[in-house]
């Protein structure tokens, strides 16, 4: 891991080597894409691709235009696509998220960018009470084909109000879909599929991933958004995770391999719906599981996954299930405390060793 705790120089193949991301439509790109790029650039390319492909697509959010995006994701898009399609909004999360819902219902394909999950709470009413419910309340009369993107996660010493990981909370809500792209390929490919979905889709981009570099296949395009991916095969224990924690989990798997413990790493990719089939196949094979989740442990998505594992593979498991989550504390400011508060490879290794009886 790099000094800032972020993954770097990771080479990820678009197709070979990793399973789980299947093409759903062939792509003829009318411009060349860089062979090696950052996660941030991959997201930008995804947005550009969507804007070019479909005139109904537009991006709306705070500082997405002139500022170029809080995390520089949308840099350059304003000059390329103009102010009608790259819309800077006032600091009115509720209004512009609701506006995104209305525009989607009326036939556009908006991408609403909520600067971070921390501010999304101001739009929670629109997300839960409008986006997630309109199809149902209207008796299936209206689609809400809206995509909301948000940055999430801790690690930059931004302290308690700017460091939440609330993906698990959103995954609680029927009526929306929740994605957590952890790889360059997914950052590039999930957006289009989400835009084509007639239901609201929330995409969470972990802030520690934006600088991550990687290779992308020349024909990289849309990926499916309902399945988990096995990022590393193993027979001794399943490490189940998503988003920013994927890379710490892969690092933990390397450390465990040096001690002859072969871990299988599952990247959930979608938190709602959860890909039970992939999870259970893995846990049936290894008989042990640790879930790594940057949310706080209590009532988290890791708790949901544990419950599902017990429900569906009780007779196969051979050790208590474990979880590595953020500690029950608002995220502190100083670096050493922040790092102690969130999941780390060392904690994952320790939990795995307990599960295999080598503690």
């Amino acid at each position, binding site marked *: 891991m790099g000094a800032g705790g972020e993954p770097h120089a990771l080479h990820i193949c678009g197709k070979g080597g990793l399973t789980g991301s299947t093409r759903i439509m062939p792509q003829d790109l009318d411009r060349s894409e860089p062979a090696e790029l950052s996660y941030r650039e991959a997201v930008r390319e995804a947005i550009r691709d969507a804007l070019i492909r479909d005139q109904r697509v*537009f991006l709306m959010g705070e500082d997405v235009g002139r500022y170029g995006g809080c995390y520089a994701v949308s840099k350059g898009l304003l000059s390329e696509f103009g102010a009608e399609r790259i819309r800077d909004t*006032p600091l*009115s999360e509720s209004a512009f998220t609701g*506006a995104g819902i*209305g*525009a989607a219902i009326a036939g*556009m394909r908006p991408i609403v960018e909520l600067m971070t999950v921390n501010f999304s709470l101001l739009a929670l009413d629109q997300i839960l009470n409008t986006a997630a419910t309109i199809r*149902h309340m209207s008796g299936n009369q209206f689609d809400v084909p809206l995509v909301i993107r948000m940055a999430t996660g801790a690690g930059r010493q931004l302290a308690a109000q700017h460091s939440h990981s609330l993906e698990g909370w959103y995954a609680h809500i029927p*009526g929306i*879909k929740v994605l957590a792209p952890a790889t360059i390929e997914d950052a590039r490919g999930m957006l289009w599929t989400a835009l084509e979905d007639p239901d609201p889709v929330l995409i969470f981009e972990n802030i520690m991933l934006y600088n991550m570099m990687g290779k992308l296949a020349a024909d990289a395009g849309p990926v499916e958004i309902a399945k988990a991916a096995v990022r590393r095969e193993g027979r001794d224990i399943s490490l189940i995770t998503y988003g920013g924690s994927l890379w710490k989990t892969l690092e933990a798997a390397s450390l465990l391999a040096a001690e002859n413990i072969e871990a299988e790493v599952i990247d959930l990719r979608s938190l709602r719906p959860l890909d039970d089939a992939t999870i259970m196949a893995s846990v049936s094979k290894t008989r042990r599981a640790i879930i790594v989740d940057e949310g706080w442990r209590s009532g988290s998505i890791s708790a949901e996954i544990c419950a599902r594992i017990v429900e569906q593979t009780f007779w196969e498991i051979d050790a208590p299930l474990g979880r590595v989550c953020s500690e029950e504390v608002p995220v502190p400011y100083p670096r050493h405390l922040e790092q102690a508060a969130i999941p780390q490879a060392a904690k994952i290794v320790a939990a795995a060793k307990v599960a295999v009886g080598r503690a």
Partner: protein
Amino acid sequence: MSDKPHLSRAHELDLLKHMIRIRRFEDKCAELYTQEKIRGFLHLYDGEEAVAVGVIPILEKADRIVSTYREHGHALVRGVPMKAALAEMYGKQEGCSGGRGGSMHLFDRATNFYGGNAIVAGGLPLAVGLALADHMRAENIVTACFFGDGAVAEGEFHESLNLAALWALPVLFVCENNLYAMGTALALSESETDLHLKAASYRIASEPVDGMDVVAVEAAARRAVRAIRETGKPYFLECRTYRFRAHSMFDAQLYRTKAEGEAWRQKGPIVRFRGWLESNRMIHPEELARIEAEVAAEINEAIAFAEAGTWEPAENLTRFTYAERAA
């Protein structure tokens, strides 16, 4: 389209019938609610009919309407079939929302009726979004957004007005100021009680309107809609009205006096308009009787329809959460 309401007799009778139709329907809903045919929350429009009836008929078919949980009147005037609305309140599958929504969530795609919303001010951002789509596609479509004085306190009201003004979106904001947000009097919750001034502070064209006068409401609505179609910019109407019944059925109305209600009833929209028509000899008693009879018949038909309606099978519970794709 001209600003002046057409004061032809046919049109007048039309306005009266619309208001009577709403009033009788709401009263019947009250009765059905006491009999537990309608459940949950029921918010009735008695006293406010002139607002819906003044605004909605001048809209085009392609125009859009967003309303609140007190939306029966808007739905009926817009053309949502009465029996579908009542069946919806009964919870039957034949309801306009498939029985899934109830009184507070009447939706109808065919008439561009976007609900029915139980969150105060929750519909304003939605209306802004619908208008944004039309603006981006350069369509000549107006979105009429109805809400009460209570919504004015919510952040979403301010955010929505600001955004609509900033981006020049074709929204007709209609504030039905009935002086009470549930049990809280306007003067106790707003430092500035001239609500149209708040819209003006966002540089939105706005005016106060006598919400008990259906002709005045129509005239103001015509001005507003014309301005919106010509400029593409939003408009704000503060319709001053009064709610004759309680906030909802289960409300002891401890927060206002009976005398106040009585005073407003004297100048209620139907009483006033009918009185005006009668004194101008523009309506005969037989015509009034005919209107009442037609309305009563329609209501009875709606009740029969709702009573005969069917319950959605419980196996279908989890449908309509996500789009159903062809297998």
